[in-house]
């Protein structure tokens, strides 16, 4: 089926018989002159098509019908473009049990009119997919942003102008059930920050007690800003697949080795407005080991009621985090700690690397030297007091 949406100017009459309203259509079918598909609203796809119709002087009936496509019938609108002041849509009739409607249009003279018909169409969607290839040093990458159009609308779209809400519009032909993927942006030399994140709330504190080596989540962080050759628009959610360039083995001895890529992982990109960071969790590192222990956990300043039950106390807690990097290169590691309630930092070893994220969360942003294990390991200690602990403190907000 080529076109399932039809527009007809009814040059015949509309027969309304007494018992059954059989509609007899004597039609002139105008072709589409233009199709515009607007995908900028994630909730609905708007299609606008323009057709040239020939109107008689007086009242004309124009029939718009569809089958096999899912159009929101309440969304259909027609706008005269050539003579908007002389062509008036009088009313719209909806016949029973039909995917059709009939406009009564009055025209001040016999004339050709270009009309624009707008409607919301289901089954036409878009996805964003990203592909990134990191340089072997993991300092920069090439990011490609693809737009993937899915047409399950039932309608073939020929030479449709496609608008996605940013960037230039483009023309494409996309058949029913076709998926069309297009490169919409390519950024070379996009700076990336590679970081490992050890979160005290989700990872085991003592790897010695684990049966398997604890992997520490590895992320690439990019910033949607001008310095990164981005920042022109919000980065939309979509899957990011990340590869890294590799050297291939030469085919024969003495020949130059080619370049290839290896897949390093994928993540869902979240919506990222301009000047904000996008963190992509792509895999785990097992060459960094983090051991956290609580070396002091005292209740202090205890207050009891007359029944000798503790009703309020403070704490004195010391934490020791030992970090070993077995890699031959330095690596950035973020240690995330969660201390809900009212607390104060008494002292800590890495004040310069400390950053309070919110009331109940802080981080140490460490750069671990290459091969810093054994005696050369990094040790972070911090001493906190929780204050006025009752047990009714919020754990999150």
């Amino acid at each position, binding site marked *: 089926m080529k076109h399932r949406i039809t527009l007809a100017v009814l040059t015949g009459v509309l027969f309304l018989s007494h*018992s059954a309203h059989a509609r007899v259509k004597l039609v002139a079918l105008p072709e589409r002159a233009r199709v515009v598909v607007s995908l900028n609203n994630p909730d609905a796809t708007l299609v606008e098509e323009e057709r040239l119709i020939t109107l008689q002087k007086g009242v004309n009936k124009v029939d718009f019908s569809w089958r096999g496509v899912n159009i929101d019938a309440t969304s259909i609108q027609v706008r005269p473009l050539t003579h908007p002041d002389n062509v008036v849509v*009088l009313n719209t*009739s909806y*016949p029973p049990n039909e995917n059709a409607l009939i406009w009564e249009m009055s025209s001040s003279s016999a004339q050709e009119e270009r009309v624009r018909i707008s409607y919301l169409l289901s089954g036409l969607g878009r996805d964003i997919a990203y592909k990134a290839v990191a340089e072997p040093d993991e300092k920069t990458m090439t990011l490609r942003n693809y737009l993937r159009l899915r047409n399950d609308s039932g309608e073939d779209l020929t030479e449709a102008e496609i*608008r996605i809400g940013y960037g230039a519009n483009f023309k494409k032909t996309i058949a029913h059930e076709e998926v069309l993927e297009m490169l919409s942006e390519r950024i070379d030399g996009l700076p990336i920050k590679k970081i490992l994140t050890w979160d005290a709330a989700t990872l085991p504190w003592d790897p010695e007690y684990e049966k398997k080596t604890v992997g520490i989540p590895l992320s690439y962080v990019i910033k949607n800003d001008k310095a990164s050759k981005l920042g022109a628009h919000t980065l939309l959610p979509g899957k990011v697949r990340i590869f890294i360039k590799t050297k291939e083995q030469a085919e024969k001895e003495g020949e130059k080795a080619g370049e290839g890529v290896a897949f390093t992982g994928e993540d869902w990109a979240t919506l990222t*407005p*301009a000047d904000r960071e996008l963190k992509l969790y792509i895999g785990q590192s097992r060459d960094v080991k983090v051991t956290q222990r609580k070396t002091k956990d005292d209740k202090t300043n205890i207050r009891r009621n007359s029944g000798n039950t503790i009703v309020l106390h403070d704490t004195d807690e010391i934490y020791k985090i030992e970090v070993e990097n077995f890699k031959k290169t330095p690596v950035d590691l973020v240690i995330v700690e969660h201390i809900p309630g009212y607390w104060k930092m008494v002292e800590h070893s890495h004040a310069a690397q400390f950053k309070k994220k919110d*009331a109940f969360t802080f981080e140490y942003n460490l750069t671990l030297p290459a091969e810093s294990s054994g005696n050369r390991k990094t040790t972070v200690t911090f001493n906190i007091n929780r204050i*006025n602990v009752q047990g009714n403190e919020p754990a999150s*907000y």
Partner: protein
Amino acid sequence: MKNDLTEGSQVGGWESEQMRKQRRVSRIHLPNCSPAHLLICMLAVLLFWVASPAHARINVVTLPGRDSVQLTIYNSVDLTLVKESRFLTFRKGLNRLEFSWANTLIDPTSVEFRALTHGDEVEVLDVSFPPRVANTLEWRINSEFAGEVQVEIRYFTSGINWSADYVAEANKIENLMHLAGHVRVNNHSGEDYENAQVRLVVGMVRLVEEIAALARAGRPGPLTQLPAPAAMPEASAKLALYQEVDRLQERAKDAPRQVIKEGLSEYFLYTVEGRDTIPNGWSKRMPSFKAQEVPIVSYYKHERERYGDKVIRHYRFKNDKESKLGTEPLPDGAVKAFRFETDDRLYAFVGRTSVKYIPLNEQVELELGNDLEVMVKPVLTNWIKTDIQFDNNGNVKGWTTREAWEFELQNSKDIDVVLDIRRNFSGDWSISTQAQHENVDANKVKFVAPLKAREKQKFSYQLTIRHGTNATR
């Protein structure tokens, strides 16, 4: 649609069961009588001097159909008042008029007759719902006048409804919109209404029994499982509405063909321009009004308890004269909002929503869904507990918490917006902040921040909550 009037004549006022049967047989065989439609038969059966059923003569004449029909459709209940007028030829003395409505949804208790001409000379004696015949009634009418009389028949039907819908077209920078209102009439009543004047009532009327249920019953009588109606006030209210509707109808006769919008009591009546034919099963949508360049504010709201973490876009406008509106209340209905994206007025779809009934001079907000391009990020930056109080038993009886909050706001759009952030608190709370704010109620605070295109802002506040005996309110 066909409406058939059949007429016979009768001398005297008495009719036997045999005659009734014979009459009905005659009616069934009438040409052009469809069982699915309204039928009116004028029965003037000539009775011979010998009052024997066998000698009754039935005279059947097909008379012209409706001369006009008017539909007054309600949107709050499934109710349409149908008023039709036609010319009937009466004889002096007793006339019988039969009205039947097979396969329609007419409330038999609502059917009324009155003579528009010669009203003093034409009198309804009684109305009978004959036994064992559904959807039929018969008026016995005494006429002092012989000749043509214009009569009006009025009844309620269910199965016709109407709804309003709107199309909002905002300009590129979303500070003005065109607003077009439409009304859509759906006819599932079983009856075709040709060349009808359509009037629409905006307002809430009370019905104690559903018209559809009364229609199903086919004849007056108690409906099962329904409470007895509180008859009098409702009946008189209906009557008052009838009378008011009549009065307006008289006035509308001379009015030019336009959409007349008039308030009546607690209702608003739209009389749609011209006449329309709405066959059974069909719907028809007609323009109701068009307002150009209505000022709007792109108003964004964030309230965690209501919308989660999302920011919801609204178009805010006022139904008043300054906003090129304000001539009528706007009935509740669906709204589709678009924005002109290009110079040749291609659309971007903004969102769809529904609006509540909008009285005159009321401010309206069209809720148009989440907009990803406006961000609100609240962060609790500090939390402390202090001022601990103990009772005589050493238990904690009072304490105070202090929260520091910072809000990051970001407008990624190329147009200016206004952001409305609401925070809900409970207990004995107080806030201190440099930011402009307003107490919406005892436990809700509103921060309104206008953001220019691509602008980022921050604001913060300190929240203190006094618990236990520390609370003073």
